[in-house]
């Protein structure tokens, strides 16, 4: 009997994951049949892949609810209870820095950027200089994400209104854009988007909401969100500064 219930629950969750994928399937099929009108490449493999995606999505969402969210919240509670501002700041910085430095999207973008900048003749085109440049870029972005989480957590503690900080950040981005070398601007703007990975986002969100729940006078909705906003804003400013430093 319990076995049957389990199967039913799994099927229910699979159905939800399938619903999430339906828009993609519709778009792909429509374009292949109606617009491009060419035979579908490797149809068997594609269907197989979609099944993987659906199962993966289901497992991920389940794992979030029973693993990632509780651990993020319980760390937030424990750190708030400990009452040491310094440890909370260190935790925030290390969490931001360590999850970003290993981020595959960032590694790929940094490498691409070093090839483009040396191609444009802005840095020496020796392998050593290019590697150094790419590593520097990764460290810059990781440092800025660490700092972003620190500022974001401080904001939750102090109850500063988010929009002053974000609008201030936007103005800084504009000013930096005027003085930064134009080769780095597109890259800097994109760097904001690629830093927050699929595992970091749930953890950081749970941390923010958890902190805002335990601290008196903060609302989880108004104050708990916003950490990711900082993590996408600061890298833009820092990457442009990195560009200024190099060229």
């Amino acid at each position, binding site marked *: 009997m319990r076995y049957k219930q389990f199967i039913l629950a799994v099927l229910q969750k699979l159905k939800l994951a399938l619903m999430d994928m339906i828009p993609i399937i519709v*778009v*792909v099929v429509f374009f*292949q049949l109606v*617009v*491009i009108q*060419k035979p579908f490449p490797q149809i068997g*493999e*594609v269907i*197989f*892949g979609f099944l*993987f*995606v659906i*199962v*993966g*999505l*289901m*497992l*991920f*969402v*389940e*794992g979030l*609810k*029973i*693993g*990632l969210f509780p*651990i993020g919240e319980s*760390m937030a509670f*424990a*750190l708030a209870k*400990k009452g040491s501002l310094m440890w909370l700041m260190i935790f925030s910085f290390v*969490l931001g820095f*360590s*999850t970003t430095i*290993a981020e595959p*999207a960032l590694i790929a973008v940094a490498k691409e950027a070093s090839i483009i900048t040396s191609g444009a003749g802005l840095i020496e085109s020796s392998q050593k200089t290019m590697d150094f440049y790419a590593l520097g870029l990764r460290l810059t972005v990781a440092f800025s994400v660490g700092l972003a989480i620190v500022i974001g957590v401080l904001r939750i503690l102090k109850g500063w209104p*988010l*929009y002053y900080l*974000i*609008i201030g950040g*936007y103005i800084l981005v504009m000013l930096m854009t005027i003085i930064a070398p134009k*080769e780095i*601007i*597109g890259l800097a*703007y994109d760097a*904001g*988007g*690629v830093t*927050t990975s*699929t*595992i970091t*986002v*749930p953890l950081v969100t749970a941390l923010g909401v958890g902190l805002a729940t335990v601290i008196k006078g903060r*609302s989880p*909705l108004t104050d*708990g*969100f*916003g950490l*990711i*906003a900082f993590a*996408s804003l600061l890298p833009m400013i820092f990457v442009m500064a990195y560009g200024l430093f190099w060229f």
Partner: protein
Amino acid sequence: MDFVLVLLSTLRDVLPILIVIIFFQIVVLKQSIPHLKKVIFGGVLVVFGLAFFLVGLEKALFPVGKIMATQLSDPAFIGISSGEPSKWWSYYWIYIFAALIGFSTTIAEPSLIAVAIKADEVSAGTISQKGLRVTVALGVAFALALGTFRIVTGTSLFIYIMVGYLIVIVQTFFTPKRLIALAYDSGGVTTSTVTVPLVAALGLGLSSTVPGRNPSIDGFGLIAFASLFPIITVLGYAQFMELKSRLLNIKINKDAV
């Protein structure tokens, strides 16, 4: 075989987080994690789920998406000879494709699902999971259509971003304060596992086939668009919800009278 490789690289992504958590639990907090077994089980599900998800994308979506992006921007498909200066409207299928693929991949984006679950929980259902995800997806759809238009016309990225920021700043003044943080966060979560590789392929493919565009300058910027416009649509959604509840209140008051 592929699966094992992807699983290992997912584990490598998780490793720094794991080290940080264990270090803080043991050295700083000096206590064990509550419901440790459940949390470990959840963590294992997340890693396996993500690995399955990525392998599936690699097999199903990325090849198809990349082929479609190149085919749609192919001069022969658009019906111009490649030397001829192109008109921006000849690329209309590209804009439609960009918008639809942006919308549909954002609906399936795992980090957005995570934030939407939390927002639903914290706002006690005012911000529904589905509502937030659809709103963000609409923002990404608009962003990618506009972003591909920018690549085709070769206009400056800076101007679009600046105008976008101005809209966000103005909207911020008219949006209920409690929803602003959530709206700002929606910008950062849209672009991760699913959207980034597809969007990068679209941008680079398009900028290398449109005459007069340089991939290293014009290829960038789509991700920046996709992180900016969802903020605008979510702020708009918040304003709409506020307006709706205000109208509802007026109606209830009237009925009471």
